[in-house]
């Protein structure tokens, strides 16, 4: 009986704390949603999160959709983020496996290099990076962005996957190789399938970080047709800086894809991390 009562008390406390913390975590989102439903005049001078009149005003969304190039911006962001996440996944699987399984001086040096690369300050490399991309004619192309994002996320991804592969016993490949597999075959057919949770975690991390990147995109992309969602949003912010209702509607539209992605991906994220991607 006391056990039951204790459990009930714990549950109530859990929910209470979760609601408070979740409210704090999602306060800007609530504010954004609420403001997007206000009229421009209403948004200017009220404390409340939602329209005071209680009337929800949906016109802002229609206005945003007709006045912006968000559809093409979102498509570009999707292409770049998915492209970079996939490329990152491929390269980091290959490299992470090597670092996990071969312990030579070169792989040891490479592992240290990866740690150092995560600390690279963006100002140090911004101008030289642009010059290199210019040299390869990769400025103002989506491919340029894909390669840059892949590179900037690679160190973290390889390092996470190395940690993941470390938890998989070597005997698995050894058994497969005795069955006649080549080394690469064992990697492809045995290691990769059981690494799916870790790999998906890496992909999710890379995707989210690419989706939100602004500075490099601002420098590399010129044409409207290649602009990502953050560039489109920034442009919109500059143009409608005082129309907070409209701005919020734009922000809501720009955020929807990531939220959908998150709801679908969070399960795999936890699974992958649990299975050992961040073990150190």
């Amino acid at each position, binding site marked *: 009986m006391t056990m039951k009562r204790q459990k009930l008390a714990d549950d109530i406390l859990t929910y209470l704390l979760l609601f408070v913390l979740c409210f704090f975590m999602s306060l800007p989102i609530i504010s954004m949603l609420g403001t997007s439903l206000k009229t421009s*005049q209403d948004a*200017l*001078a009220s404390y409340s999160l939602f329209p005071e009149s209680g009337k929800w005003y949906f016109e802002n969304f229609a206005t945003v959709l007709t*006045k912006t190039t968000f559809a093409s911006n979102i498509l570009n962001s999707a292409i770049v983020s998915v492209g970079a996440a*996939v*490329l990152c*996944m*491929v390269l980091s*699987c290959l490299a992470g496996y090597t670092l996990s399984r071969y312990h030579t001086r070169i792989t040891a040096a490479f592992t240290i290099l990866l740690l150092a690369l995560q600390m690279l300050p963006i100002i140090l490399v*911004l*101008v030289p990076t*642009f*010059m290199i*991309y*210019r040299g*390869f*004619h*990769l*400025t*103002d*192309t989506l*491919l*340029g962005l894909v390669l840059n994002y892949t590179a900037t996320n690679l160190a973290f991804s390889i390092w996470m996957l190395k940690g993941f592969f470390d938890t998989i016993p070597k005997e698995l490949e050894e058994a497969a190789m005795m069955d006649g597999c080549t080394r690469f075959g064992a990697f*492809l057919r045995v290691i*990769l*399938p*059981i690494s*799916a949770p870790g*790999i*998906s975690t890496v992909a999710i991390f890379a995707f989210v970080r690419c989706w939100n990147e602004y500075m490099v995109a*601002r*420098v590399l992309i*010129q*044409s*409207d047709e290649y602009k990502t969602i953050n*560039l489109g949003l*920034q*442009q919109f*912010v*500059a*143009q*409608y*800086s*005082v129309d*907070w209702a409209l701005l919020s509607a734009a922000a809501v539209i720009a955020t929807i894809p990531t939220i959908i992605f998150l709801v679908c991906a969070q399960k795999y994220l936890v699974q992958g991390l649990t299975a050992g991607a961040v073990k150190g």
Partner: protein
Amino acid sequence: MKKIVSVTMAAAMLLGLTACGGKAGSTAVSSSTAGAASQSAAEGEKVTLNFWDMNWNSAAGDMYVNAAKAKVDEFNASQDHIVVEYQSIPWADYYQYFLTAIKGGAGPDVATAGSQTPIQFYQMGEILPLDDIVEQWKTEGTYEDYIAGIVESNYYDGHYIALPWGCDPRTIIYRTDLFEEAGITELPTNWEELKAALETLKEKFPDKVPLAAFGNLQGAQQVFDYFLHTNEGGQVTEDLKADFNNPKMQETLEYVASLYDGGLIPEGMIAYEQTDAERLFLSGEACCMIPASTSALLDDNLKDKVGILNPIQGPSATEPRTLYWANSIAAYAQTKYPEESKQFIKWWLENQESLFVDGLLSAVPARISFMENPYFSENVLIKSYTEVIYPTFLHATYPVPGFYPAYGQINGERYLGEAGQKILSGERDYNAIMDATQVKIQEALDAVS
């Protein structure tokens, strides 16, 4: 699930690795700047110029961009040798964008940018002088059509490094209805009268902010620069020595301090951005606003209740003054086609009149004859700009007639704004503030000499 992922993985691996090599070659075509640079300007062949243009009326959305694109089309149709490609540049982080592009060899042929941008790039050897055009204008008589001194604002080192198309003044706007209600019939003409008017407003409307302003670095810079110019003060001497601790500067700092201490400007303004000040004015919570905002002038609810204050005179000034910047267009030295770039710039400046109307530019044209356009001569608000404000213009670089190399850093690093923020955070040791800033200004001047 695991199986799907592993199959996708394997497929992605193959695709990813092969596509990587394949795509790299084909994208060269999609980079328009690369394409232009590799073309040769052989006889009869078309020449492509990249024109980067800021959005000069971002408060009105794409209106300016569309009008400017139409103007470029008009140029392209007017001759068959040059094709100008128009590129609208957003204001956010524009200098960094120019800098990385030009340092990386992918800059524009022709561009408009911040008013100080040409002198910055001239110092780097990246600007193509436009002396030829001024020569031509002098023989054609066009030169006389420009506001006095404005062409010279971009004369440096014996060259015209850019040419002006407009002026960007700073003014104070006010609510005509609130002034009336408070019984202010005479508009203020000097610092004391302005302060008295603000005090009257504060008494009449205790819940409203008398003068909305923003005081982040950029805002503090503008507010103090505005009052400094109405007092005919500057930050350097005419022969380019640091001159921050001068009496006119001290008067300015003391004056804004008295506005702040009197509760006439927002107490929390040091954290305000432009949008925060605009929000106060647009929501009817403020009686005046500095600097004037286009959004407020265009706002449907306010546009009949807003006026522009007349230029103000500081205690040390000889007459009322208005701070302004010359906005200009420049050609960049990396261009493969210097003659064509100059040809386009000359055309652009001479045929720009309709752009002020179609693009609703908030700037005043640099050419006097453009102001005869009914858009300027009949619109009451704009008329007061051109008739009352324009004769009081004092260029931002005063007492230097035009942009000088260190101006980019002095204005860009916002030393005056930093000194102003000290005032806005309650510091009142004027000598210490001025001496500290004096050192920084001298360093900036030394760095480029």
